[in-house]
């Protein structure tokens, strides 16, 4: 049987094979695979009736939910491009994202409608079509041609190894390659219950929970946010077998002081991505719940690259590359380096985008000769496992979110009393980082007021935890900030 070449085709084939399986459990609602396919057709029909067609970039401002899955597959069914938007973003950030991604319609729900309208007004697009999830009608079937393998399907923002956000487009072919290789490696399929709590608006939650679960015939159990007691209850009650999360989540569970023992014995596979996981957290999690947390490495540009499977003796590693994906370590001149030698990581993957939309310079910097260079530093051990030892980029890892310090610095610099600002990450015991800002002010200024100023303009996870006042910041004669000297 030929392999499906589009997300839509893959969904249809999975539904044929798994018609008696629940596809998605969202609170008290259970959606079977056939119901999912019907809901996708209806939502795609609604998009069509709203005048949208192939190639349109359609924003998705939705929490993790069955609705998110329905509209993601509906948008891609229309051969349009899904542009997931994080609900954590503030109005101005959403507006910037919407404008940057060339969004021509927005899907949201009742709870987020006001936020969506404010963002569209801020983006100077108040009349953009706004579609409400939860109101799909079976009267509107989609009549548009199905998508082709090389149609773009997903547009996510990435800051790459440099600060300026860029748009990454990946095609149906890219996404299916990743999904097939990943679900095969993880042996994910019918019978698995996959927890969907990592945000679907990011590549980790979207591809490794939502798309992997649905297209492998497993059951996706969605949660709109991470709260450790809630997640523990869901894992126990729904017999969750696969949990893909971020280090912060696993640390919270590993160290929770439950009043009574918590049974998470249904878990067969826990994968952590988006940021380095401390091996000690994985061991503590294993000691309490009987399952190690293993690391997966991927990027927005390439999708999943490598995964550490069953290698409890190498918890610090992100494992071997998935089949069909090449990883090499190169030196400063691009020369391949031998095992155990640290260098820049290069990735060759059929799942990868081929560049950044509308950004030739950034594309030329990160995409070279078919390889993608994410700005990570690592080495390959004698067993062929990849180890990450740092990033050449400057991002702060905050609870699984990547924060660009330059974005926070520029917001601080907008404050009328701030003359100069710098932002760094400070490691925490939970394995992520807190944000520390350093500012030079022209007149006495209240730290809390500065944080409040940022709160109006930045998502909560980007807020500085502490602000230090300095007489000056270390800069070169050309004005470049010397972060290492802060």
């Amino acid at each position, binding site marked *: 049987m030929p392999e499906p070449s589009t997300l839509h085709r893959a969904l249809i084939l999975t539904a044929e094979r798994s018609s008696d399986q629940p596809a998605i459990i969202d609170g008290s609602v259970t959606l079977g695979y056939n119901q999912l396919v019907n809901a996708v057709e209806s939502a795609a029909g609604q998009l069509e009736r709203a005048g949208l067609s192939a190639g349109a970039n359609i924003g998705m401002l939705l929490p993790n939910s069955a609705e998110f899955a329905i509209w993601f597959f509906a948008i891609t069914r229309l051969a349009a491009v899904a542009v997931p938007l994080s609900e954590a973003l503030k109005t101005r950030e959403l507006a910037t994202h919407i404008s940057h991604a060339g969004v021509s319609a927005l899907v949201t729900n009742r709870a987020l409608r006001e936020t969506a309208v404010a963002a569209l007004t801020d983006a100077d697009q108040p009349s953009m079509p706004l579609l409400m999830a939860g109101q799909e009608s079976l009267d509107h079937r989609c009549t548009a041609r199905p998508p082709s393998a090389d149609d773009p399907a997903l547009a996510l923002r990435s800051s790459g190894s440099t600060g300026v956000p860029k748009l990454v487009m990946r095609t149906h072919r890219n996404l299916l390659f990743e999904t097939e290789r990943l679900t095969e490696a993880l042996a994910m399929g019918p019978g698995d219950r996959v927890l969907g709590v990592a945000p679907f608006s990011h590549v980790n939650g979207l591809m490794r929970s939502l798309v992997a679960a649905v297209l492998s015939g497993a059951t996706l159990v969605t949660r709109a946010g991470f*709260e*450790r*007691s*809630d997640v523990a209850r869901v894992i126990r009650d729904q017999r969750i077998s696969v949990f893909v999360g971020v280090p*912060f989540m696993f640390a*919270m569970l590993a*160290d*929770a*002081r*439950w*009043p009574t023992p918590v049974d998470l014995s249904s878990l067969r596979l826990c994968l952590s991505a988006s940021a380095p996981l401390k091996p000690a957290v994985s061991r503590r999690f294993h000691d309490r719940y009987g399952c190690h947390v293993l690391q997966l490495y991927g990027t927005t540009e390439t999708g999943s690259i490598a995964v550490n499977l069953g290698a409890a003796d190498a918890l610090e590693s992100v494992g071997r590359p998935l089949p069909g994906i090449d990883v090499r370590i190169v030196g400063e001149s691009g020369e391949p380096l031998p095992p155990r030698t640290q260098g820049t990581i290069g990735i060759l993957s059929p799942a990868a985008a081929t560049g950044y939309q509308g950004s030739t310079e950034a594309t030329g910097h990160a995409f070279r000769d078919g390889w993608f260079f994410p700005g990570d530093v690592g080495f390959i051990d004698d067993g062929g496992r990849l180890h990450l030892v740092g990033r050449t980029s400057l991002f702060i890892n*905050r*609870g699984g979110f990547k924060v660009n310090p330059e974005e926070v610095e520029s917001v601080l610099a907008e404050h009328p009393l701030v003359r100069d600002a710098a932002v760094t990450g400070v490691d*925490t015991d*939970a394995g992520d980082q*807190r944000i*520390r800002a350093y500012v030079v002010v022209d007149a006495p200024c209240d*730290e*809390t*007021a500065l*944080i*409040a100023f940022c*709160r109006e303009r930045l998502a*909560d*996870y980007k*807020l500085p*935890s*502490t*602000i*230090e006042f300095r007489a000056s910041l270390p800069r070169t004669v050309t004005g470049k900030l010397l972060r290492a000297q802060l």
Partner: protein
Amino acid sequence: MTGVDIENRLKRVVLDHLGRPLPIDELRRETSLYGRGLGFSSLDLVSLLVAVEETFDIFFDGEEMSAAAQTFGALLAAVECKVNASAAERDA
């Protein structure tokens, strides 16, 4: 542990977690933990509450956590309630 002991210990945990100098007298019961109060972000609040749990050997369920993460007074009341409940359980 007396109510005053709990309050002083809790103040120390909050101030340590704040990561910036704040006179202990400025931490009042009506002081908000977030926004224009102490300015904790939601992620900071989660790690603060975990530190409070470790200090007092207590556990906050999800809704208790949301209720406690409002003002210093709300947090103090939640901690006192938990600590007293634990003491009563031990005495029983």
